[in-house]
């Protein structure tokens, strides 16, 4: 059962949140690659990792313990603390 609340704001912004603006360039940024532990996701991310490094970019690798559950808070905090952008696969 859902609960209904009433908007306390001036209702200027749409209810659906807009995604964050994408950076104009990756230069100087740290890119996190999050492996969600789906089969062969690592193969794809290894390739992406190499492509980014070939461009001279900084890459950090992360891995969720299992794709069946949300990422642990420690992992999310680690990524948020050290990365400017993150690439995350959502499914196969």
């Amino acid at each position: 059962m859902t609960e209904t609340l009433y908007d306390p704001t001036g209702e200027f912004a749409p209810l659906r949140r807009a995604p964050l603006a994408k950076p104009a360039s990756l230069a100087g940024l740290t890119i996190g690659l999050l492996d969600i532990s789906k089969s062969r996701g690592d193969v794809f991310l290894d390739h992406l990792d190499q492509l980014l490094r070939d461009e001279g970019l900084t890459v950090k690798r992360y891995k969720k313990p299992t794709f069946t559950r949300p990422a642990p808070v420690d992992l999310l905090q680690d990524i948020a603390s050290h990365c400017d952008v993150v690439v995350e696969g959502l499914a196969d």
Partner: protein
Amino acid sequence: MHLPEGLIAIVKQDCPTCVLVDPVLRHIEASGLPLTVYVQDEPDFPSTRQVVDDRSLEASYRLHIETVPTLIKVRDGQEQARVVGWERDEWRALTGLAALGGELPAYRPGCGSLAVQPGIAERLALKYGDFSIHSREVEVPTLSDSTEYCFERGWSDGLPVVPPTAERIYRMLQATTRAPGEVLGAMPPLLTACTVEKVAINAVMAGCKPEYLQAVLAAVEAALDPAFCLHGLLATTWFSGPMIVVNGPARKALGMNWAGNVLGQGNRANATIGRALQLTVRNVGGGKPQETDMSTFGHPGKLGFCFAEDEDTPWTTLAEDRGVSRERSAVTVFSADGPLGCADQKSRTPEALIYSLAGSLRGLNHVDMVNGADAVVVIGPEHGRVFDLAGWSKDDVTRALHAATHIKGVDLGMGTAPGAVAGSDAGLRAKFRPGGLTLVRAGGQAGMFSAIIPGWLVKGELGTDPVTREIRA
């Protein structure tokens, strides 16, 4: 609502008087009068033939039933008369049955109708009444925690808020006679129309009791007065935020604090009235930190800063000085930084205490700054006693503080060195503009202290002035 012709009785099983009158209702029915019995709890309870299950309480709500049993006479679809509880003579008069209830006592009071139970009445009003909320509905996703969801939506000042549900908003709005759609003004920085309903929603979220709403509405109105310059105040890099001082009977009626820890935590009215104003600024106006609110530091009171004045002193009250008599309640909004303590446990004469307070005041903002921010000085009871025993009025103290806070031009050296400021001389500069010092009485009984609350650096016509608004229904 369509009313059946004849007689209507509203009963519930969980009412000894209703149980008592059940044979009387059978008697009415047997006499041939058309009778419809509405039952609020147990449909099998009435022993009469024409029974309507009113467990939804819709009929009870629409008929404004406050007590059961209630007997109503209907003709041509219109209510002609009603009796409440069991009063034999009245029941006889209404039904025209002279021998009705002869075996019962002459009088038994009824019981409370389920339709007016706390918590139920609001739901019925929302379901069957003409009340509606105009703000956008927001569905909390299934299995989500509604308080967490309020954080995610960006509606919080950093502390948990009470989720604004229809029942809570309804209860809040019952505390004012003002229409939910009434516009109090344009709330900066987005200049959105700030309605009574939006304030009520934010008051719910702040944790206000409904009876606080009138004070919150007065505070929002005061803050929206152009003289207060809310836009600049919320956007400034300086520390200040709005501060509310409450005067009059509302202080006691709302259970506010003007005694120990008056500027601190622990009193619901103080804490949530101040918070409701700030949440309204944040949510309705969009004034958020690190966005339009560019304050370099802010201060803890920007979560909400509200207290009441101690009016049990020989001095006039703040609201009296500003044109609202003691018999009426008012809020006054100031721009305010966090409080600074002034300790003086030695002075026993007004002159000595003025020296101490003035010394603390001269250093505000910057020791070399003159004509800077206004300041509110909250005189604690033990400092106030020194002035009271000597017969010094608030005007006497204010005048003495102005006189004692002048600074010589040659002593001003900001940006260079004392005496090196171009054009400086030995002439005296006033630290505060005329009217720039406001004295308020509050605080705990022990401690020879006062609190100095500086305001925004930009005051007067170019910036902020205090604004007072009467609290009204």
